[in-house]
């Protein structure tokens, strides 16, 4: 089962590119998590496993190109192996949407990255939709409505 506490996208340069919190935390707690995790994860060797213990929970991460996708999970509740698949689904979805997504795409289209994430993962941090096709169809439909709004304005 999946019940993420948060999803962070961090670059190899230790810059946060996206963060979504699924449990209420104070800004201070959030900053602490980010500041603690970045050196821990960036310093790990590539052959090490993608699960680590941190504070009162567990962290599952995966690196794609220059980006680290980092999820906080609850031991005993979350299935860490499944969390890795969720991250992978997210990356695949963005890859298809942007066409071979890169860090720069996410920086300049972060609201799209959030839109895709919100289709994939529901408000409590569980997986909401397992089909990449379904996710992208809906994103595209919403993009189209935005486009039509635009067109309406031009035509009227």
């Amino acid at each position, binding site marked *: *089962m*999946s019940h993420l506490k948060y999803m962070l996208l961090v670059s190899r340069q230790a810059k*946060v*590119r*996206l*963060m*979504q919190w699924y449990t*209420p935390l104070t800004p201070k707690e959030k*900053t602490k998590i*980010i500041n603690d995790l970045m050196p821990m994860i960036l*310093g790990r060797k*590539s*052959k*090490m*496993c*993608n*699960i*680590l*213990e*941190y*504070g*009162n*929970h*567990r962290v599952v991460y995966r690196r794609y190109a220059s980006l680290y996708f980092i999820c906080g999970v*609850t*031991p*005993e509740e979350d*299935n*860490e*192996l*499944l969390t*890795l*698949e*969720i991250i992978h*689904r997210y990356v695949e979805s963005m890859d298809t949407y942007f066409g071979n997504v890169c860090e720069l795409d996410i920086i300049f289209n*972060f*609201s799209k990255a*959030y*839109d895709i994430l*919100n289709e994939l993962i*529901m*408000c*409590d941090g*569980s*997986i*909401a*939709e*397992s*089909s*990449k*096709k*379904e996710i992208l169809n*809906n994103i595209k*439909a*919403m993009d189209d*409505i*935005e486009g039509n*709004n*635009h067109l309406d304005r031009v035509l009227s």
Partner: protein
Amino acid sequence: MVASSLRSFIKDVRNAKTLADERSVISKQSAKIRTKLRDDRLSNEKKRANIQKLLYLYILGEKTHFGQVGSINLIASDEFVDKRLGYLATILLLDESQDLLTLLTNMLNNDLQHPNKYIVALALNTLGCLSSTELARDLYPDVENILKNSSDPFLLKKALQCNAKLIQKDRSLLEIFPVSLIGSKLIDSANISTHGVLLGVCKVLQAILITFDKSFNKTGEDTATEQEDDDEYQEDVGILKTIAEYIQPLSYRLSTLNSKSLEPSYDVQGIQDPFLQCELLVTLKWFFKIGNNLGLEEITRHNTAFNDRLTQIATNTSALKNPGNAILYEVTRTIFELNLTQPLRVLGVNILANFLAPTKNANNTSNNVKYVGLNTLVSVVPEEPKAVQRYRKFISQCLYDYDISIKFRALELTFEIMDEENFVELTTELMNFLEKISKSHYHYATSYIDIDDSKDLILYTVDHLLEKFEVFTNSDDKTKLDALMNTLKMAGSFVDLDRTNEFIVAINNIDDLKYKIALLSKELAELLDEKKNADAESSACLELTIVWCIGEYVDLIIANPNTNKNIVNEKSIIQFLSKLNNTYRLSKESKMVHYILTAALKLSTKINDKALVEELRQIIVSHSKDTNLMTQTKSIHYELLFNQPDNIKKQFLQAMPKFEKKTTSRGLETHPIAKEPKKQNDLLLDLLNDTEFGKIATKEPTIAQPEKPNDVLADLLGSSTSKPKEKLQIPSESVLIHKGTEIEVYEKTIDISSGLAHLELYVKALNNKLTDIQPLCAVPKTQKITLSQLQPSNSMNAGETVKQSLRINGSGKLKLRIKMSFCVGDASAVVSEQFDYKLDQTI
């Protein structure tokens, strides 16, 4: 002097400098956005651009709270593009606790009834993310309405997700939520029951079941009247009976998913939707967890079918790739959480053990599987020890994994499966491991990370070995003694000198004196052989232990016919002490000096050569002006004792008795408990109470110098420094967890990290003097508790406090059942007070 090129760059920078604006760009930007957001006349396009920039700052970690109202305002726009961004910004910038949420109520209410399904979906998602209890109540009817009337899977999916969150927020919604809505429409319909909808159904059912589980567990503790409790219980059972009808169809869906691969868009590396499979498994698990607890026939009648289904999934699912392993992992967790039948439990262990099996292409994917495998096995050892032990080869192999976290888990598991039977085998394995890792520490460490890691591993191993040695009293003495010596030699330099006491206690407690002497004489021969010793590394820990052993066993060692007298003799031993004394005389390591002094004193009764005895006296006298007051006092005391006639001296200086272990019950636990080795000074104080020493001491006025005789003797035996009893205060940050007739108990959390909690209990005697205080603690099955000695002693006067520190390893919620027994006043009858304490934390 700056190089010319750098200088030319500086010059160029100066030329380019126009009106210098020193403020950082970011603060300038946010100030600009702040002003603009206040401007109502801005077009929506401009507002949107500002919110976009604001979100960018949010990601950078800047303060963005001032954008909250602006975000909500954007939702009020009629255009989709505004709403989409407005809702996103609202979710990110607001949280559940904020007053601003009331502003949202109306907008959400409107949008939940919007003709455009995407706008409804945005509103549902936002409601789910930000639902306060109030918001949940106000807007629940809209959500229910969608569930009732819509037949669009997209909308139903979103409404289900939202509904699950609302139920979690406000339990009372269950009273009005028509659970039958989930029914056939959502689970069985070909057009509607998409995977997304099923995931939503799972979430709603989980929300209901978890809420029930919580309240059933709470029943009895609550202050609500029994009547209310009972009514609520009956209602809950009613709902349970209704949703129990979904067990079969859900289970059927699970089996179809698992056995057929139909739709490519749900395929993950050959596995059909592992996400949904796992969620279905978890949902069913919750059904059975609660159903079995309550003995609810509507649920329990599916037990056998469910067990068969689990077996079927375990057999059908391919373990070649991660998605399949994710499902298998979920199956094992289901088996152990429900504590299903023995064959299933063994199946579970086999699956997990397969996760550890070495693969040809070792990569981090296989490491992840190893990690969860080891981690889960640790928690199932209590249920299936034999089944796990069967895989000790695999476990041992993981000790040599490249990945430090795997090594740690494997170590943990190795200790977990250790018992009297496999004690020798596993100890030998651990010795190999220690040897390898301490070698690599010196030779192959490439970065500081490695060094720290190997040190941690070594310390972990040493700690747990000592623990186990104390638990397994019947195990092979030779193995133990060899292991103790080897550990000291290989890892002594990593171990804190203060912990050496535990090695000494362990050596002292070994019964096989003959082997002990043989081994010690061999070790001494090695240590004293100057030719060999020239380049060998020796640690303070090892030296301290040897010093103690010399004081304790020197006569037996010399009398041993196999001892190489050319190397090991009275003279060489005293020279060794003398040399060590010189080395440590000026160091801050007073502990070592104290041990040397004690050894010298003991030795003086065991040898006859006058010249050598004088050398021993010199060692003692050499500290009579020591700057360390403790050492100085000790030196003066010992000199006094030294001059006593032999027969009196010998009475004090008999061989140390075996340290007795106090039994600590584990209550709910069945497997042997590892106790924290006791601090030696406590042991010694205990010893004094029940041996002859105390009595002799009080009769012997000559020794009664500035300190009490007891203290002198305590020093003598262990050279630990005994402090005057300090009055223990209850720390201000502790919480009262029990108030009984005789005692109050306070808890202070020292540290809670994953897998480990360190707590302190402060027990205060309220009205009477309490003696013979015995704490008993029990923890859930997935955890292990270690109790230390009561501090400062196991008795106290009225108004005084004693401290008990607890270490809990394992995983799960922190729950304690504590029983304190004691004698009140001068009565000899044992009285006890028992209570439970739940921390709101998980390890």
